[in-house]
């Protein structure tokens, strides 16, 4: 049995671990355009900020691939996929046959068609190569504008600031972190950024990137008319699934590559996982692209198991983020911005600006479906349990959760016993 995995992000790592749980013998081949072994992608902001050195990037040890019988074809791009012949063709002229294929090509940064965006001095921030470029640049430049006030944008801004660059953030939505946070949480995070001197502009975006006679960037003209001088522009609006390979091969693609609950695509024995996949979202039951680190690993793991024949349905992903801003920790899990008009959602929020703490709980039909924590995050995981295990809470339990905090004793007794003190034969894993 030969497993071929395109891409070596965390989804492919999960796939290796999933396959090896079931099949210790089958050959695994990884074909990746990047020329390094799997690294912790979110670590690039730590690298850029100077908090860690490049030796800490690898997710697993140097002997890992050998120990797990994985052949690496790095620095190699797959140019074509033939689902009928079950082969992939690389840019090195090789044709590799597969019994099972996993497409884990991840996402590519989305660059909007802003006038002036083409050319030098425009950068993205999603790969190690991007980070290395920016590290080099940071020694030479004075000012940067970051377009995008989401997770990637804020991290890029913070990291550049730590390297001594003066940074301004531009965000279209009325607040930063509009995806995973709400106004109050966003404000607490924004305060920390302001305190260190990072300027944040919300409700505006770039109208035009203006260049000088030599073609180099001079600054960004905003939609509100202001002009921000800068030496470089970092575009950090988001990523879109890198699904062109699959599309060309005739695999069904919507926003991302559509996969069933075993992570298999419309093509037999072809699977997809990670940022490129449109897989089941646990909360909505719909198929969505949710480019979140744990989801990528879990999808990879599940696809690996299924490719090896374990037939294990994928539970579905949860959006979740844990990020700290200059010492202020924040956690966001699940559905945190329910539609305001919908009365079926019960939102309970408590803000303490002086202590810089915030807690928001979102309930729907007697279950916790989302939460945000800022500052006081120690019980985050315990809240996650209620979402992940979809625990039904009666009024008394919900009250206790809100007032006394999440506790294992609020779990349904059978789940509690099965988890912590099961009968020997029925132990939960």
């Amino acid at each position, binding site marked *: 049995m030969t497993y071929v995995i395109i891409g070596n992000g965390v989804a492919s790592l*999960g796939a290796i*671990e999933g396959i*090896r749980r079931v099949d210790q013998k089958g050959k695994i081949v990884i074909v990746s355009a990047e020329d390094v072994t799997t690294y*912790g*992608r*979110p*670590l690039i902001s*730590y690298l850029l900020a100077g*908090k*860690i050195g490049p030796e*800490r990037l*690898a*997710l*697993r040890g140097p002997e890992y691939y050998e120990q797990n019988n994985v052949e690496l074809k790095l620095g190699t791009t797959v140019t074509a996929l033939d689902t009928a012949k079950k082969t992939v063709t690389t840019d090195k002229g090789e044709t590799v046959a597969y019994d099972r294929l996993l497409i884990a090509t991840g996402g590519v940064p989305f660059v909007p068609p802003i006038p002036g965006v083409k050319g030098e001095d425009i950068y993205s921030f999603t790969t190690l190569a991007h980070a290395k470029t920016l590290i080099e640049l940071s020694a030479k430049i004075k000012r940067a504008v970051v377009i995008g006030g989401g997770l990637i944008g804020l991290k890029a801004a913070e990291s550049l600031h730590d390297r001594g660059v003066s940074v301004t953030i531009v965000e279209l939505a009325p607040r930063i972190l509009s995806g995973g946070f709400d106004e109050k949480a966003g404000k607490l995070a924004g305060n920390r950024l302001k305190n260190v001197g990072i300027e944040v502009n919300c409700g505006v975006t770039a109208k035009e990137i203006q260049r000088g006679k030599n073609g180099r960037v001079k600054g960004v003209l905003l939609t509100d008319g202001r002009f921000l001088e800068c030496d470089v522009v970092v575009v950090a609006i988001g990523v879109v699934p890198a699904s062109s390979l699959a599309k060309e091969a005739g695999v069904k693609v919507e926003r991302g590559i559509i996969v069933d609950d075993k992570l298999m695509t419309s093509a037999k024995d072809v699977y997809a996982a990670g940022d490129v996949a449109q897989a089941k979202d646990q909360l909505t039951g719909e198929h969505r692209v949710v480019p979140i*680190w*744990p989801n990528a*690993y*879990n999808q990879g*793991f599940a696809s690996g198991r299924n490719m090896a024949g374990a037939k294990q349905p994928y539970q579905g992903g949860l959006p*979740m*983020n*844990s*990020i*700290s801003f200059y010492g202020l*920790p924040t*956690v966001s*899990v699940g559905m945190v911005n329910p539609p305001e008009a919908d009365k079926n959602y019960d939102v309970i929020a408590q803000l303490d600006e002086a202590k810089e703490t915030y807690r928001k709980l979102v309930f729907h039909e007697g279950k916790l479906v989302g939460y945000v924590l800022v500052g006081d*995050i*120690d*019980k*985050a*995981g*315990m809240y*996650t*349990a209620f979402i*992940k*295990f979809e625990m039904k809470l009666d009024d008394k339990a919900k009250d*206790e959760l809100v007032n*006394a905090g999440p*506790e*294992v*004793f609020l779990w349904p007794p059978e789940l*509690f016993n099965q*988890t*912590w*003190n*099961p*009968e*020997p*034969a029925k*132990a939960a*894993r």
Partner: protein
Amino acid sequence: MKRVYPNKDVCIGCHICELACITAHSKSKDLILAYTVERGQNGLSSCKHVHEAGPVCVALSCRHCDEPACVAACISGALRKDPETGRTVYDREKCVGCWSCLMACPYGAIARHPLEPKIVKCDLCHDRPGGPACVAACPNQALKQEER
């Protein structure tokens, strides 16, 4: 693999398991020094946590799940599964203190280190002769290490 299973019906909430845990993970291996000196100086803290609600209590720690949510969430590879022993292993050096594991673990097994951007998580006392300190110390046999 042998895990530590707590029985809430006979847990008396004495917290002696937590004391045994910090002693086992201390430099001095002396309860008095561990509790009074090392906790303050080095941020030594217990991997075992007693949860209480009224008269009910139970002592919980990392379950070393077969499919750990923390390993999936870890951005630095500090948390991984050891295929030989079955433990969920934490490499302190690699950890960057992002708290993703703390967010992902639905069992509340992960805590922030009081002083550094690192986590505190049960390691099943793998290098302690006699096995987990909490199991040995419990005065009411509420913790059992067995294969289930």
